[in-house]
Each structure stands twice: as C-alpha cells, then as structure tokens.
C-alpha cells in the first residue's frame, strides 16, 4: 500500500469572531490516495471549504497535521507547494482578475515560477480546456460563467500540479454547463493522473465525480462513504440519511 498523497490528521481550525471562538473544523482526519478523487459534502458552515483553505494555508490551523506526499507543509506555502497543489474556486466571476486579459491570468503562474515558453503553454492550456485560441486576449467580462470557470481550471493546471482542490466548482453554473465542466474535469483528471479533493453541497455531483465522500456537519466529520455505499444508501448516521433524502435528484423518484 502506497502512502496517501494527502493525509490530514485530527485537524482543528478555530476563528475568533466577536471575541468568541468559532470551531470551524473539529478533529477531522482523512486521507486521499494518489489519483483518487475524494469529496467533502455538508451544509454551509460545516467546515468543508475551510479544510481546503487550511491545506492552502489560508485558514489558521489550531492543531492537527496536514501532510502532502508524507511531508509536513511549511507555514508559508511557497513555490514548491503551488507547483504541486492548486485550487479552483466556486465563483468564476470573483476568482479571476477582472482587469487582466486571459493571457496575463494564465501566464502569471509561469512568470512567478520562472518557466519559459509561456506563449506555447498558454495556447496549449486554452486548447486543453476546450476554449478557442481567440479567447486569449479577451477580458473575463467578455466570457460566460462556464467559459470563465474553464479559464480558472486552465490557470490551476498551468504549473502541472498533482493535486487539484475544487471548491464548489460548478455550483454557480447552469445544469448543462455544469455537465460540460464536470466532463472536462473528469477528462483532465484521467489524462494527467490528477488527485481531486472536491467540495460540494450537491451529493449527486460528488457521487458522479468521487470515489469516496466524507459528510460533514458543524465542523465535524459525520460519516465516510464509498461510492458504492452511497449508491445503495448504506449510510448509518441520521444526518447522512437526511442529506441523502433531501438531495434534489431523489425528488424525481
């Protein structure tokens, strides 16, 4: 058995708000093998996005450890980290610089890491996510939501990372555009051997994309299910059952 690529052990994240401590993540452990896709599901405030942010160093870790490829992460995440781990955010309207062209957005990671051949790489990156080369010198406002999310995915892949952290990558998109984006992620994951850690509130989306899923509530891990167990509704906790029953695709019976 190879060691897990992402190993999170008893992670706690606390925020101080109005002089009160908010326990956003409490004692959550999980491990994701290389090339696996792992889902985190829960309601708003369940701490699922905070886990992704903690991996990137964007949330204050109170205790617990996060190992990537068996190594602890430096406090300042640095270039070695960003070459390995990249994140795609929920809202493509907010996560791309509105005053930079797509070309500048995509070539910036290359410039920071001192990589050459930016011209060819940007063209290739656009082609990889199914955007025409003519989009290269456009601004984000000239693109639809689905096209912007493709740009965000292309940007995350510029440094050829192993791990992609996906924070609700399709919840701002229409159903048909969601399908296209999920298909794109599956294809890229397959081609490049990516490891996904994906957050969503939509159990059906997670089920489609992930091999295992962790259900979260109030910052705590409630239950971990494999894809088979989820499909056969073999959950043991009440909360998992509630979430499963409320899931929209159950509504059609």
């Amino acid at each position, binding site marked *: 058995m190879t060691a897990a690529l992402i190993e999170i052990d008893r992670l706690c994240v606390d925020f101080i708000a109005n002089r009160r401590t908010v326990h956003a993540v409490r004692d959550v452990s999980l491990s994701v093998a290389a090339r696996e896709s792992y889902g985190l599901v829960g309601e708003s405030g369940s701490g699922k996005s905070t886990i992704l942010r903690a991996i990137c160093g964007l949330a204050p870790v109170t205790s617990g450890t996060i190992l990537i490829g068996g190594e602890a992460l430096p406090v300042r995440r640095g270039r070695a980290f960003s070459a390995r781990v990249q994140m795609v955010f929920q809202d493509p309207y907010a996560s791309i610089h509105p005053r930079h062209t797509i070309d500048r957005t995509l070539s910036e990671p290359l410039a920071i890491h001192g990589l050459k051949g930016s011209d060819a790489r940007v063209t290739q990156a656009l082609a990889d996510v199914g955007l025409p080369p003519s989009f290269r010198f456009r601004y984000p406002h000239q693109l639809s939501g689905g096209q912007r999310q493709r740009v965000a995915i292309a940007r995350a892949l510029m440094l050829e990372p192993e791990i992609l952290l996906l924070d609700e990558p399709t919840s701002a998109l229409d159903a048909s555009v969601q*399908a296209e984006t999920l298909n794109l992620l599956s294809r890229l994951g397959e081609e490049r051997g990516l490891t996904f850690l994906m957050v969503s509130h939509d159990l059906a989306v997670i*089920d489609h994309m992930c091999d295992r899923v962790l259900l979260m509530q109030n910052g705590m891990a409630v239950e971990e299910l494999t894809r088979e167990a989820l499909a056969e509704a073999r959950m043991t906790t009440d909360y998992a059952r509630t979430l499963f029953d409320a899931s929209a695709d159950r509504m059609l019976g």
Partner: protein
Amino acid sequence: MTLLAVDDLHVTFDTEAGRVEAVRGVSFSLGRERLGIVGESGSGKTLTGRSILRLIRPPGHVRAKSITFDGTDLLRLSEREMRALRGQRIAMVMQDPKYSLNPVLRIGAQLTEGLRQRDRLSASDATTKAIAALEAVQIRDPARVMEAYPHELSGGMGQRVMIAMMLIPNPDLLIADEPTSALDVTVQAEVLTILDDLVRERGMGLIFISHDLRLVGRFCDRVLVMYKGRIVEELAAKDLMQARHPYTRGLLNCLPRIGGARGPLPGLDRTADWAQEGAL
C-alpha cells in the same frame, strides 16, 4: 377560475448593439395552482415574472396583448393603481435574502413598515401581526428575530423572513423567483414545505421560477420550460420524466444522479434543429 392570463408577452431591450429580444411571445394562464417556470440563465424566466408586476425599467420595454389579473388588464393600469396592487395582491419573493432585505434596519422595522404605512396600524398591532407572520413561517423565536439585523440571520432564516413579509398582506398571487437557490438542500426542503402549506391553506396562486428542473417537478402542479425567451414545452409536473422536447430532455439528462453511470454526462446539443432561430 383563471387568476392570471398572460397573452403574447414580449420584453425587449434597446442596447448599443441593437434590439435584444429577451422574452418573445410568452402566453400562459394560471388558476389557484402552483406553476413552475424553468429555464437556464438568459431564458427570460425572471423577466417574465417581473413583467407581471411591471417591474421592468427602461431601456427594457414590455409589450403584450394583455396581462389579465383577476379581470383587470395590468398594462392599462396607471403607475399609482399598479403600486396599490403590488405587494397587496401580487407579491414577489426574490432570490437572495442578503440583497433583498435592508441591511441597516432591524427585521421588525422592515416587517411592520408596510402595516403601519399602508394599513395605518398602531405600532403594537403591527408588531403582533408581524410576529404572527414569523410564526407562520416556523421561526421558533420570533421576538429575537424581530430585533435582529439581516446579517445576524442565516440564509434559511432570511428567506423565511422574506416569505413572511410577502405573506402579511395575504396576496392572491405569489411570484417566487428562485426562492431557495441560495439555500442548503436540507433548508431548501423546509422552506419549500412552508411555502407549499401556505399556498394550500390560503388558496393562493404561485409562480415558482427556478433553474432546477427536479425541484420544480416535485413542487409544482404544472411546468413551463423556457428557452431563449420562448416556452418550448408545457407539461404536468408528474409527467416531467416523459418530457418530449429535446431541450427538456437534455436538461434532465445532463444532471448527475446518485448511483448513475460514471461516463461523461450528456451535454446539451445547442446546434440541433430545435435550437435554431426558425424552429423556436
């Protein structure tokens, strides 16, 4: 009995790039039932809802043969008469409580404002009525919520407050524009149940606008499917899975399902015959 009849509704916008037709000839009628309007972004579903309340502002332009509500043609009413109708007889619940409630006023002040201004109730009578309305949407601690500011409420609570606010004048028709899209699935189910009970008890008509075909299918009696400003299919919600139109079928098929196949999800073919200008 027909509560609302919309005949040949068009909404156009004059832009620098020319005239954009956002709604093109929509006709439907509604009794005291739950009607769903579904479509993707840009299909014209929200504009259809707003046109009924005459809330489209220039450069938008509304044109229709008639929009008849309870025997009167809304298009012939003066702005003053229209204002008397909005809220009182036709109410609208917007998508996101974060943007629709006044962030610097307490919930109590926002709920009682209409009662005091319009119905000339005393402060204590208005408060009693507002608390009753909060109880009707199953808010457990209405006294606390009355004192709270919008940012102190969760999304689900905020949306319930909005529904309570719209229900105070007891309207005949409620237009709900994506009332649950900003909410978690479990909260979504609660809010929909509340809405459903209120509509049944009070015998209101409901227009439920949503992008979520599955939700509309479960919650409404009848569904209109819109694409590019036109109604492409109208069907009873229980027959949704037997939809004929390729667009409706496409929308249903592109959704992932728990336990579904792992392969690529079928996309929507927007180049097919039905999607061409002439066919619509």
